[in-house]
């Protein structure tokens, strides 16, 4: 180690370290001190950061989980109609009214209205209605479902997800929900 050094502050080479028992134990103490204090300093931002970063776990679906207006009963028949559902939404710090929260297919099934979420239970692509074949088809991975939403073919692990639907005074309301993807059972997220 021959480095050019400041002539004024020339430290020369270091003296061999003092190896007396006191000096050794003192150095050990200092090393422990550095470890403890240094570790403590690291914890200062880390500990609060844990709660801070997992904050999203505490968030819940707001009004989006309520019964949302879908239209008049007379607008729906045997052919599936795609309905967009709107709700007032809280998104972190913002509050927006009338935001599209999702959509579903609505049609009559044995005289009763049924709502099927457009989200494919496989990986969440938006399922289309194929009028020619009278079936629902996912454009991503070729999952196909019959008019009742029952899985016919493709990688989807279950049938299309039905949504809660109510009729009152000639008006239709639907509760929009999302379900876990890629699993055989229908579990709300």
């Amino acid at each position, binding site marked *: 180690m021959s480095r050019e*050094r400041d002539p004024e502050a020339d430290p020369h080479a270091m003296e061999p370290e003092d190896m007396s028992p006191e000096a050794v134990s003192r150095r050990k103490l200092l090393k422990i001190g550095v470890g403890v204090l240094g570790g403590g300093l690291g914890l200062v931002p880390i500990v609060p950061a844990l709660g*801070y970063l997992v904050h999203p776990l505490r968030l819940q679906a707001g009004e989006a989980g309520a019964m949302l207006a879908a239209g008049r009963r007379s607008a729906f028949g045997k052919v599936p109609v795609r309905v967009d559902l709107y709700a007032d939404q809280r998104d972190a*710090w913002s*509050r927006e009214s009338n935001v599209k929260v999702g959509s579903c297919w609505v049609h009559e099934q044995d005289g009763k209205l049924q709502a099927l979420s457009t989200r494919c239970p496989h990986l969440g692509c938006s399922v289309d209605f194929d009028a020619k074949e009278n079936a629902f088809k996912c454009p991503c991975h070729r999952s196909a479902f019959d008019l009742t939403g029952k899985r016919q073919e493709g990688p989807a692990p279950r049938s299309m997800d039905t949504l809660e639907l109510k009729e009152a005074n000639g008006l239709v309301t639907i509760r929009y929900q999302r379900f876990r993807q890629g699993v055989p059972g229908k579990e709300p997220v």
Partner: protein
Amino acid sequence: MKKIITWLTGRTGLDVAISSALTEPVPGGARWQYVFGSVLTFLFMQQVVLGILLAFYYSPSASQAWASTAYMNDQVAAGWFLRGLHHNGSSAMVIVVVLHLLQVVWAGAYRAPREVNWWTGLAMGGLVLAFALTGYLLPWDQKGYWATQVATGIMGSLPGGDPLKQVIQGGPEYGSLTITRFFSLHVFVLPLVLGGLLAAHIALFRRHGVTPPANLNDAELKRKTQPFWPNQLFLDVAAMAICAAVMIVMTFRTHGAELFAPADPASNFVARPEWYFLFLYQLLKYFEGPLQIVATVLLPGAVAVTLFAFPWVDRATSRRPSARWPALMVVGGLMAAVTALTALALVEDAHNESYQKGLKLAEEESTRARKLALEGVPPAGGIAVFDNDPKEKARKLFKEHCSTCHTIEGRGGQEAPSFDDYNSRDWLFALIRDPHSKRFFGGTKGHKDMKAVPAVASAVTEATAGAAVPDDQLRAVVEYVLSLEGPDAGPTDAAMVAKGKALWNGTVECTSCHEVEAGKSDTGPTLAGRGTVAWITRIIRNSSEEDLFGDTAEMPKFADKLKPEEIKALAEFIFSQRGVKPAAP
């Protein structure tokens, strides 16, 4: 474990790197006065970590910045603490930079061969201030917005500074581009530049070593030499811990950093810079008009040049402080001037009543805004948070449904009575005196039945009430009318009420049209409970009810147009106008 370490070090040379970083002889031994550089490095790294954490929730846009900061600060667990620590970190850095500079000057460590080290240090000191300036604006709150306006304003006032200002603030005015630019500078450009300079600074420091006390000779230095690890590092880490402890205490004491109301370009906020810029702010007060450049550029520039040239300003042949007193005096004088200016600024503000008042208002506004933000901020962001205020909602409703005919807060139509200072004694007095003035029923098509009440007999005509009523008598009538409102009217003068009641039944002849008991009705509105929120609500719902305006009512019925809670909000808003006088247009 040992095997893994051997494997890793054999391939990376990590052990050599670490030991060469730690094995550094400290001639003359470890000392407290060497800790400042390490503390600054620690502070910088902590700021980086905290800054990254803040970026998890912060959104750099003119519409989102305030809302996201308020959310992080008031709704996310520990958000206030991390943001507060980041805020206090900037103050801590400024303080430690000054201490470091003073130590370097005292030790003469700027002298040959450490000039480049000195310059990189000065440059980093400037960067710390640039960090503070750019970071300050990011919450897009009143204080950040207005304090930064001053800084960019100074830039624009320089000869040829306008294009520079426009480029930095991203346009002729503050807006979306201002915040993306400041964000980019604060979060990417400045840290990278500072990191580079810091690496050079440390490398140069390692090349030249510490600057030990000048009064120790070589032999003594050598005898007292201690290793950096662990002797000096322990002191360094202990100093960092003290610094961190102070910052944590400060953060808890103030519950984090302040966050004022969202930036409002139309407001008149009492702008003050952060404490470490107060001396520059104070300096500005002494140089007016064309001389302003002295305070903004020439003096600070001269100081900067002096500091950069310091290795040559100091002509002493020895490094001992006693031999360098002229150089030390320069820095000492500078520090004294900065301290004095800062103190002056603080004292002046402490005695400035309008500033204190403005600050108090600003704090109330901040509390209100942050409370409203808990409900979520509308998409427009920033000051749109005030739309959450029920009063603001009512004001909007009023503007939409009522202001074509009625005036409130100095704005609106004159087709129907004005609600400015509604139902106050003065308002009632003026109404009874002359119901047909534009301020009251003058703009309506009907409502001609009520007769004006002149003050002097000579003004009595066919079209007016039968007898003149002097001001003091009319005041008594007003007091009586007010008493009919009930407790909501506030305290009334019983003697005046009694006098007014007598006049009411007698001279002024009000009884011929107005009933004063609930449940009865006459040609004019029944006055029991008149002016209360409930009464105003009934008027808004349907003013043509028998005991209100009956068949002379012209106002649309809002019972079917607005929701009950909207009508109630409107009624409360109108009721609250008593005592509110609009500013002269």
